[in-house]
């Protein structure tokens, strides 16, 4: 089971590199925003996996906080694009 966890971490890191191509190349702000959102959700899974592999449950709390920050950052940037201000 631990081997499967290690393999999952490696595959997810390769996925992050695939998304990073869209962040660097992608035309316009929206494409980059989608790619950053995808990278954030992948990072949450990697944090949970690190917590499971090394037996440290504190990483799960970090994953929850990271999910909230990712959501709020995406909403803030989307609102800024739509209306021109965050207020």
């Amino acid at each position, binding site marked *: 089971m631990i081997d499967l966890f290690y393999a999952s971490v490696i595959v997810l890191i390769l996925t992050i590199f*695939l998304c990073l191509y869209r962040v660097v190349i992608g035309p316009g702000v929206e494409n980059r925003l989608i790619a950053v959102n995808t990278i954030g959700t*992948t990072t949450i899974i990697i944090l*949970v996996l690190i917590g*499971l592999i090394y037996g440290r449950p504190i990483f799960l709390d970090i994953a929850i906080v990271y999910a909230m920050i990712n959501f709020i950052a995406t*909403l803030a940037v989307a609102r800024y*694009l739509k209306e021109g201000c965050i207020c």
Partner: protein
Amino acid sequence: MHLLNTLASIFIIVGLFFMVVGAIGLLRLPDLYTRVHATGKCDTMGEGMMLFGFILYEGVSLLTMKMLLLVLFIFITSPTAVHAIMNAAHTCGTEPWEKGDERR
């Protein structure tokens, strides 16, 4: 116990497949809206399936409740974030891709 581990492995592998398909869709599809379609669905589904596999692997504990909370939170917030991005792009005037257009 053995059956639960096998079930957890199947869930994790299927979730991993969904995540990889979402990333490939983000690279390959021609337009903003199609990319949103690929990543929004595949990320929510893959993440939920992988976390459900971890829940089956761990058994009942405080850790499992936190993971369940994470699954619920992501099932609510991930489509909302994607919808916000797409609404912003639609308001800014991004035209949808049609057959025969150039890839963007």
